């Protein structure tokens, strides 16, 4: 991890970082510059390099640089308006950016020649407001893109969707419509819909922010399980408990820039930056 706003750090990972790591999740808490050299073919799954974005004259992202390696769970947190949602939407080009480059599995997304629909089909995305398609049954929500984008047969797509529904505990609701499910159930369907595309990485944009408090847990459980299985994840969230439990790296953003990044212990336990400290004390209370 490097960030324009960060001071240089020691090239040796601290032992503490390794202790915090969940087993089997690869190198953890190391900064991009100090990560042991990896073969070129296994470069970062997502590399965000000096990304800046403006809405007219207003700069929403300032020289953001970070990366997500295969199997890594990166949690992006920060106050509202800090640009974290905008940044994650830049990763699959839902939002354009004017400067810098983002590479997903070796493909430059700002390259005009990149087939964006094809790239996006391999990047799962979960939205704050679920965004299930209200006119389609849960089964059809899960199979639409499988059939139209991946070219799977209806039977194959529905079987895959049903298997994933079972995984998120909603198999009995397959015939229902989104409006008949609770928020938490809808979000679990949305996660299953993204997983049905066999994504190489999952992006979560505040997946629990629109939920009633009693439904946050069921969604986080699914995400924790996903992380434990080794899914590469980039998660924008205020759920610091989730960050502590499963994140390999926590990135703190403020005013469109990345302020600091490190292991949960580093960033949440003993933040270097005053801005991070004041945010944490406000969130934790």
């Amino acid at each position: 991890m490097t960030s324009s706003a960060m001071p240089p750090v020691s090239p040796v990972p601290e032992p503490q970082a390794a202790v915090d790591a969940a087993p089997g999740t690869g190198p953890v808490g190391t900064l991009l510059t100090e990560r042991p050299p990896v073969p070129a073919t296994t470069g970062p799954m997502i590399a965000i390099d000096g990304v800046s974005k403006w809405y007219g004259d207003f700069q929403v992202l300032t020289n953001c640089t970070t990366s997500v390696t295969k199997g890594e769970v990166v949690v992006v947190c920060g106050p509202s308006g800090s640009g974290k949602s905008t940044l994650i939407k830049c990763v699959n080009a839902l939002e354009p950016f004017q400067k810098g480059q983002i590479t997903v599995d070796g493909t430059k997304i700002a390259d005009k020649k990149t087939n964006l629909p094809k790239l996006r089909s391999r990047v799962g995305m979960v939205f704050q407001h679920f965004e299930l398609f209200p006119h389609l049954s849960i089964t059809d929500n899960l199979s639409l893109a499988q059939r139209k984008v991946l070219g799977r047969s209806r039977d194959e797509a529905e079987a895959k969707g049903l298997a994933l529904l079972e995984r998120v505990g909603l198999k009995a609701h397959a015939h229902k419509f989104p409006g008949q499910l609770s928020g938490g159930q809808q979000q679990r369907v949305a996660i299953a819909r993204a997983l049905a595309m066999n994504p190489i990485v999952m992006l979560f944009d505040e997946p629990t922010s629109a939920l009633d408090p009693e439904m946050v847990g069921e969604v986080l459980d699914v995400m924790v399980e996903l992380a434990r299985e080794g899914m590469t994840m980039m998660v924008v969230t205020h759920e610091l408990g989730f960050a502590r439990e499963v994140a390999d790296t926590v990135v703190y953003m403020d005013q469109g820039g990345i302020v600091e990044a490190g292991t949960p212990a580093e960033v949440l336990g003993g933040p270097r930056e005053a801005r991070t400290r004041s945010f944490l004390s406000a969130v934790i209370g």
Partner: protein
Amino acid sequence: MNYNWNWGIFFEASPEGTGTYADMLLSGLMWTILTALCAWVVAFAVGSVVGVLRTLPSRAAQAVGNAYVELFRNIPLLVQMFLWYFVLPEVLPESWGTWLKQLPDAPFYTAVVCLGFFTASRVAEQVRAGIQALPRGQRMAGTALGLTTAQTYRYVLLPNAYRIILPPLTSEFLNNLKNTSVALTIGLLELTARARAMQEFSFQVFEAFTAATIIYIIINLLVVTVAGVIERRVAVPGR
């Protein structure tokens, strides 16, 4: 008022020699319905395309859509009828103009095109409003799943937008049906034209227009009923 009421007039032979006055009105009704349906096909297809154009990210597409809507909804329908029927054949190359003028049922084809394009501008506005009423995240969700822009419209945005705009679209269809009467000015023998002819032949003005009025109301109520059935059919459970 010295008026000679005669409700039996409908069953008297019309001077056209092809049947009764009732037959005359029914043939007018047939043309009204045929014109309305054909014009609606044009209006719905063109209106959907133009409405979608106005919601695309491309500035050029938006400009084309805007130009279409402002052109066709800001000229009175009557003037548009005259433009299509009397002016267009004169400004086209001579052979085309002649072909147009000699077309059998030219008033019908002209009315379909004219009314279709006019109503399309209004349908386009409904479609645009429907698409823009959807949460921004719907487009994003479709896009994020790898659907192309066309697929996102086809499978996500339009099915939802049409459901939202079904009630105003019903009104638009009713307008479309009633507006066919304007085509009497270019010689289409639709219901209003036939009622007028009946009045001129028989002098039974009240009977003729009472019949026309009632027929219009019945047809439109039928449309409203069908629209209600469609609305219930396509309603999304849980909404």
